[in-house]
């Protein structure tokens, strides 16, 4: 019983991490680190909530989250790809701006409500027969639409990245931009486009927290989970398969912390459980010897003779 609930929570909590980390894999494969991921998650959570609350439709909520992510990505991509400014610096600026902007616009839309505004959660979709399977049924076949989408995205992402021409271009843009340029492909356009795509996905991942988990919006709704997705991309060795494993491990840590908090078992201090995923990340970052870092990660592409 408890194992079933932990497993279900694990898969649920790993959903946004899967989407966000996969998005990060794509963008980093082209040589751009999306440092604004934490802020984009938050903007997505905000836009998803506001869109749903204003229209009463979860679908429109998800659409607004994607659009808001896209806008954030356009800003980040324009400054880093076209203006060639430093990615960490630009991302930090957006991460400072995002909470201020989200809270401020919440106020613009809703004033100061006495009780926190709430929306209905994304409904869980039970897949007939399969959802009745013991132990794994609830975890894998009784989740909301975003969870199914996340698994589909991982599979599709793997296929696109390693089996298609688009994937080859994406990977080459991060590994050898000169060659891509020589082949007549516009490096900046590939990078900007991928930043847009990954930011839109980050927006969707953020919306999971407001629409799939809490049903409301708060300032610290993301609380560093965008950074966890960022780290999973590293630890998963820039590979969608690695992302799947990484996201499930961190989802498990999140799920355990929920179970420990709600069941009142205080054998371990709660803080340790909260810190656990971060400690795992640090150890894994240190222990991981062979990294598959895209050669031009974080370096702007400047055409010669400009």
């Amino acid at each position, binding site marked *: 019983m408890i194992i079933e609930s932990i497993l279900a929570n694990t898969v649920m909590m790993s959903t946004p991490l899967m989407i966000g980390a996969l998005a990060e894999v794509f963008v980093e494969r082209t040589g751009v680190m999306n440092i604004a991921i934490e802020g984009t998650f938050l903007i997505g959570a905000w836009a998803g909530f506001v869109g749903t609350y204003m229209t009463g439709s979860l679908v429109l909520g998800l659409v607004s989250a994607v659009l808001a992510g896209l806008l954030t990505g356009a800003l980040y991509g324009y400054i880093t790809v076209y203006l060639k400014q430093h990615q960490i*610096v630009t991302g930090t600026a957006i991460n*400072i701006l995002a909470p*201020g*902007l989200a809270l*401020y616009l919440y106020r613009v839309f809703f004033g100061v409500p006495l009780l926190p505004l709430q929306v209905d959660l994304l409904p869980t979709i039970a897949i007939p027969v399969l959802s009745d399977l013991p132990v794994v049924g609830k975890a894998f076949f009784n989740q909301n639409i975003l969870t199914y989408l996340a698994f589909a995205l991982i599979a599709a992402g793997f296929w696109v990245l390693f089996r298609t021409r688009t994937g080859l271009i994406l990977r080459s843009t991060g590994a050898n931009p000169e060659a891509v340029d020589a082949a007549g492909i516009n490096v900046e356009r590939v990078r900007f486009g991928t930043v847009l795509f990954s930011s839109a996905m980050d927006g969707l991942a953020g919306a999971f927290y407001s629409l799939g988990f809490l049903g409301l919006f708060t300032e610290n709704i993301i609380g560093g989970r965008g950074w966890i997705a960022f780290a999973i991309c590293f630890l998963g060795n820039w590979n969608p398969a690695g992302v799947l494993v990484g996201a499930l491990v961190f989802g498990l840590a999140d799920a355990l912390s929920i179970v420990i908090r709600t069941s009142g078992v205080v054998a371990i201090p709660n803080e340790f459980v*909260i*810190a656990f995923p*971060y400690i795992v*990340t640090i150890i894994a970052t*240190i222990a991981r010897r062979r990294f598959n870092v895209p050669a031009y990660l974080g370096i702007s592409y400047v055409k010669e003779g400009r």
Partner: protein
Amino acid sequence: MSRRMRIFLALFPVWSVFLGLALSGAMLLLLNLNPFYVYGRMVTYAFRDMYNFADIFAKAAPLILTGLAFGFAFRAFLFNIGAQGQFYIGCLATVSCALYLDTLPGIILLPLCFAASALAAGAWGSLIGFAKARFGANEFLISLMSTYVAVAIMNYLIRGPLIESKGEYPQTDVIAPQAIIPKLIPHTRLHWGFVVALLVAALAWFILWKTTLGFQIRAVGMNKDSARYAGIREKRIFVLVFLISGAFAGLAGFMEVNGIQHMLVQGFNPYIGAEGIGIAILGNAHPAGIVLAAILFGALKVGGNMVVQTSPVPSSIIGIMEGFVMLSVIFSYYLRRRIIHSLEKKRLRREEKEEQP
């Protein structure tokens, strides 16, 4: 380049601050607030009396230090984005010192708190440098994660061993009066810590530009490979830079705990690390620039807080101002480079023409 042009370009960060404030002002229109009125109020409040004016510098003191924490490491092209965690470790060290050694006289206790916060946070930071030097680990990722671990340690200690004697709220007892940094101006919150922060900034400048170590740090920052060929042991530099950088952030904790709060409250000042990054960028990672940028952020905070308390302007506007100012500063660096580039091109073309008869 003409003298006037050079001054115009040097003042670019100033123009961009105004641009950032203008963008935030446009946001105020969404709440039907008049930006000129709000900014006018901010300025009048910040300069209304000695208390508020002095508060700008009281707020700037820890920001100078977290700005230095990022800026110093940035000179070695290392990314210490864990200043928030190092700040909390510094807070914990100084508050433990002040609470457990409260029988000591101030003349011993205060330097002890100072040293404890710098050493603890420096040691914490140097672990990041060590992980990079020994295992080739990514310092960006590790410093990022270390903040969350530091927050967990702080929450655990504040809910447990360090909790106030009443045991009601997650905060410590008030520290002994002799552990409080003396006031610089009486009846304000401005304390001698501001002067100490200025001295630390001067020290950072001295290390970077007047010592061999500083030369090595900047050499590693400019080109790691050529620095290695020149015989600089870069691994030693990684550890030392993170040690010093962490110590700066830890001292910010000393300023806040012993200078302003006089206790440690769970999760206070959660953006001081990120603001430090903004300040370091605005100040071009130069100690003098960082001091000026920190004073600007201090003024935004004091003016912003007063407006928020006395009018319907929400406090989130402060984050918006900081974010927009940062973005426009980044934009201005791009623009300045473009202008210098095209001026240079023009000059070359002119010279070419002059050479050909």
